């Protein structure tokens, strides 16, 4: 046991990691959700409402936007979870009893992330009004609650869980199989001694590697294809965005996973270890990627950790493309993150691979 450090790490390390993750990182009632404001009124009432929203802790105001297009784009790229629109002459209309409404556009592609904040909205607004009436305007007002708040759940108006979970599942399916299959396949080659034979042939080491990895790209395509069919036909998940954006994302993610599998194969001494190490990488792909639990709900350190998990970026891409109708440019940031991860993983893997040859 002392000499089989991987098993040891699995038994001691994994429970600790699980404890820390479940205990600290996972939060089903996330606060500090990034929020943008489009305030066309800017009177004391609207400011009072916004201030009370911010002090509730659910909303983290990132700034102001102009016009609907900017707000929609922020929601689509995931820069903001909420866009709050306060119409022109809001305060005047309230005083006149015209019943204006505040529009809260929410990114409901992850419904559980929003439920806390949305549920708290009524209370927040009541509190704002109470503050407002205590002020010098008290005498002037009739009944200031004569306005409504409309919550517009975008991308998943019915709040269906499947709509949120299914696109993320593609990331989990791909990371599970791609990482594990490549790692095991390569380690098997070393374990059986056939790698030695391959190296003794004039084939270059990198050619051996590519030959081992490329077939699994095809496997990844087949999985993606089956997934798309199941998602759209079985689970009614929409596919609103550009196919090109999706295809680029899938390819990048498959390659990143294969590189990761390759990296694991250079560290594992036998197939059993390769399996265990692959499992290590899959756990954060499920817990820290925003697949099961809202990414925004995690504390800063967990979010940072989540950033180095490829699945995090891929889940963003898939959700943005399938649910939010994103185009290539909307997910460019996630592409960039995947490319960086790919480069880093490949460099380490290639370096280690060269050492194992010696």
């Amino acid at each position, binding site marked *: 046991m002392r000499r089989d450090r991987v098993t040891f790490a699995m038994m001691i390390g994994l429970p600790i990691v699980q404890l820390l993750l479940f205990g600290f990182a996972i939060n089903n009632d996330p606060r500090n959700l990034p929020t943008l404001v489009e305030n066309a009124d800017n009177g004391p009432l609207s400011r009072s409402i916004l201030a009370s929203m911010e002090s509730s802790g659910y909303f983290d105001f990132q700034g102001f936007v102009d016009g609907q297009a900017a707000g929609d784009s922020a929601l689509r790229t995931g820069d903001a979870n909420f866009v709050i629109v306060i119409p022109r002459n809001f305060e005047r209309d309230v005083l006149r009893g015209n019943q204006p409404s505040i529009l809260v556009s929410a990114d409901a592609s992850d419904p559980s992330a929003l439920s806390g904040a949305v549920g708290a909205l009524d209370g927040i607004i009541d509190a704002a009004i109470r503050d407002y009436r205590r002020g010098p305007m008290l005498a002037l007002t009739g009944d200031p609650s004569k306005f409504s708040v409309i919550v517009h759940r975008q991308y998943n108006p019915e709040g269906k869980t499947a709509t949120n979970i299914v696109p993320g599942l593609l990331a989990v399916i791909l990371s599970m199989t791609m990482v594990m299959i490549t790692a095991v396949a390569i380690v098997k080659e070393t374990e*059986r*001694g*056939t790698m*030695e*034979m*391959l*190296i*003794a*042939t*004039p*084939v*270059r080491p990198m050619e051996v590697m590519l030959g081992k990895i490329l077939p699994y790209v095809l496997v990844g395509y087949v999985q993606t294809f089956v997934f798309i069919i199941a998602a759209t036909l079985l689970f009614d998940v929409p596919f609103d965005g550009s196919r090109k954006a999706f295809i680029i994302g899938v390819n990048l993610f498959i390659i990143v996973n294969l590189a990761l599998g390759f990296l694991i194969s250079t560290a594992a001494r036998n197939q059993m270890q390769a399996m265990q190490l692959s499992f290590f990488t899959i756990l954060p792909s499920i817990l820290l990627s925003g697949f099961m639990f809202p990414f925004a709900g995690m504390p800063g350190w967990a979010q940072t950790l989540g950033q180095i998990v490829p699945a995090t970026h891929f889940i963003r891409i898939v959700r943005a493309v399938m649910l939010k109708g994103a185009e290539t440019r909307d997910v460019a940031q996630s592409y960039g993150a995947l490319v960086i991860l790919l480069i880093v993983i490949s460099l380490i893997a290639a370096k280690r691979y060269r050492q194992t040859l*010696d």
Partner: protein
Amino acid sequence: MNEIVIDAKGITKKFGDFTVVDDFDIQVPKGAIYGFLGPNGSGKTTTIRILCGLLTADSGGGTCLGHDIAKESELIKREVGYMTQKFSLYQDLTIRENLDFVARMFRVKNRRKRVQAALEDLGLADRSHQLAGELSGGWKQRLALATCLIHDPKLLLLDEPTAGVDPKARREFWDEIRRLAAEGVTILVSTHYMDEAVQCDSIAYIAYGKKLIDGPSNRIAQQVGLKTYRVTGANLRALELAFKDTGEDLQIARFGTGLHVSSTDHQMLKQTVKDIATDQGAKFELQPAGLEEAFIYLMTGSKDNFRKD
């Protein structure tokens, strides 16, 4: 002067703190069978790998088939057949698929024909669809040799090729090796077995990374300067103890029904053997020292480099 196929000098390889191969020189002429002998972990495999360019040496260098072993490993690999210690073919491919796969890796021309010919040479043509993993040890070894030969290499590196193979199969294997050598293929073979070492033209004895001796196999014992008496008697155990009790620098080994007592100090050896044999009523005769005595002698004298001192 024969053409030299392998010519390397000063090869040294370290893994961490351990010097696995220490300042190794080698020269092998074309068509020779060159044997590497040595205990387990003495660096035989590593040396073979360096010579065919699979590993890079930390220092030293040379040529193999006229190519630089450090820089031109790809050219070397094309002309070398390397049979690994462990069976290294795909167990879940058939015999034919294995041969075909290796042939493709080496870009063998007329592949189909070549594979078919290899199958017929092996006598496996009618079993070509059997999985390689199902073969018995002897057949696996023959298949491995056949795959090594599929691209007609000029140099064959055999790393303990006959480990775990029955004596008959071993004999056939060596017949094949000698036939290849006669055709001009140079063969480098590592082994533990003395009866195989005798089959080699030249031998290098390696222990703990150092080459202790090399030369034609029939002259090694002479080079060591060892003399051996075979002592036979009724009570071998008592004889053995008697020799040990003398406290002299003797090498005593039991061979069948006799004791082989050897030493490089011929005077002392003769005297001691005579005394003890007369004392115990045993017979003794002088006989040429064999390879085995020579190697046991070398082994005892060599220092273990894995022991830190």
